[in-house]
């Protein structure tokens, strides 16, 4: 039986911008949940959900000792802070869009207290 949670239940995130490129760091609240993030918050997964907004390449850097990843997303900001017509021209809201990603827990996943938030 697969159960789906929001990434926000197991991780926190912050977005930054440089030009038309956005980066979102994602950190697990507890080390036990980091493998879920590593396995499921992939460049492909992000592209699948937000490909209509993230037009360029997505690269991912892992920092296992900090239980975090860094997503670097090209052509993500409609031209960037100077050119975008988006009210959020910096793409600051991307942290919470990424935190809305679904994370699948299979029956073998040990429960973490965070999931019941």
């Amino acid at each position, binding site marked *: 039986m697969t159960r789906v949670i929001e990434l*926000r239940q197991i991780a*926190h*995130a*912050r977005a*930054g*911008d*440089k*030009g*038309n*490129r956005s*980066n979102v*760091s994602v*950190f697990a*609240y507890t080390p036990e949940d980091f493998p879920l993030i590593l396995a499921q918050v992939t460049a492909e997964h992000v592209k699948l959900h937000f490909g209509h*907004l993230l037009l360029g390449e997505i*690269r991912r*850097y892992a*920092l296992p*000792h*900090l239980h*975090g990843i*860094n997503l*670097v997303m090209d052509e993500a900001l409609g031209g960037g*802070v*100077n*050119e975008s*017509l*988006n*009210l*959020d021209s910096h793409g600051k*809201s991307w942290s919470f*869009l990424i935190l809305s990603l679904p994370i699948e827990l299979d029956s073998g996943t040990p429960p973490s207290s965070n999931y019941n*938030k």
Partner: protein
Amino acid sequence: MSQKETYRIGTGAGFSSDRLDPAIDLVKRGQLNTIIFECVGERTLAFGHRDRAADPNLGYNALLETRLRALLPLCHAHGTRLITNMGVANPDAAAQLAVRIAHELGLNGLRIAAVTGDDVRTLIHDESPLHEPSCTVAETGRSILGANAYLGADAIIPALEDDAHVIITGRVADPSLFLAPIQHHFNWAADNWTQLGAGTLVGHLMECAAQVTGGYFADPGYKSVPNLAYVGFPIAEVCADGTAVITKLTDTGGMVNTQTVKEQLLYEVHNPNAYLTPDVTADFSRVNVAEVGADRVQVSNAGGAARPDQLKVTVAFDGGYLAEAEVSYAGPGAVDRAALASTIVKDRINKVHGIQTSCRTDLIGLNALHQLETEFTPNVQDVRLRTALRTNKHDAAQALLWEVESLLCCGPAGGAGYRGRIEPSVLTYSTFVKRDQVTPKIEILSV
């Protein structure tokens, strides 16, 4: 200073419009060696050039006078040095203003330095290559407002050697503002990349002020932050080996923990192995983050490799105008009526006014930021149509406002609360210049 073994550095502002009261508190109670006000972004620099073009005595941060009037007497009394890039596009005029303020406040003996040399407008020509998008200056078809190289810590250190109490710069890389006094204090060699990487890490964590002390962090129900309304600004206690403790004053709001520090560690970082500054190629990929007390987080193990050969330059162009106009709909059918209004505006902008520039429309209350695919929700009964376009022609900008306002009588039923505004727009692109083409200069003014 209280602790000989550590160098105490605080952040008084993390962006151009940052708060003043936390900075005052930091100087009063922080026993700081140095306080940094980081206030320059690409856009603020471009607007600084625009201000200076209109009046040669302007082009610096709009809050400079307010901040200096409050902080100079306190810094003087507490023996705290003040370093800031609030000179923006005109550090000389900013330093002269600082001298006038110091005179008025009777702060005799104060030494105020202006750091210039970042203005490299004369090095940029029609064929200069720009990055992202890749084209030449001429191919943009736009006029240049200004061009500034990112100076490094080495531009500031001579002013420290000359015992300046206040140092005002233009475009200096954000972490370099912090690295300079740390490097100078501990007498680190200019090619000790590991130490420069460690000092750059401190600068990077500190440069956005409250973003490391619980600001920009709260998410009710998930991440709670105590007393966020009075979030304290950060202090770094830096050791000679480059390790540092990030902390804040007692009895201030906010918090410093591994979560707040980790989020800031990667803020605006791409490859954590190679964070490029004018001073060093810093390596944040192996940084350790450890709580060593209440609101005290130690960071260590930053690395570094040789600095980049070239300096990054921001070239700012006149971007014409940004026009934005909005009108609201409420009650049953609000989304349908707003969507109809959106269609009408786009149609008439094109057919009646002959404007080909794309006009963006959003429904605030439904999909204000990202036009995510939303299931239709009949419960949404309060939406605001927002329209925006960028144009070189002022009459085209006015046409958008006119069309949206005219919806009040000619559009769908129940439109209300029209607002419109036109702002000057700037565009910034990057290029690179060789280091030896850029010569930082320092002028020291004594009060």
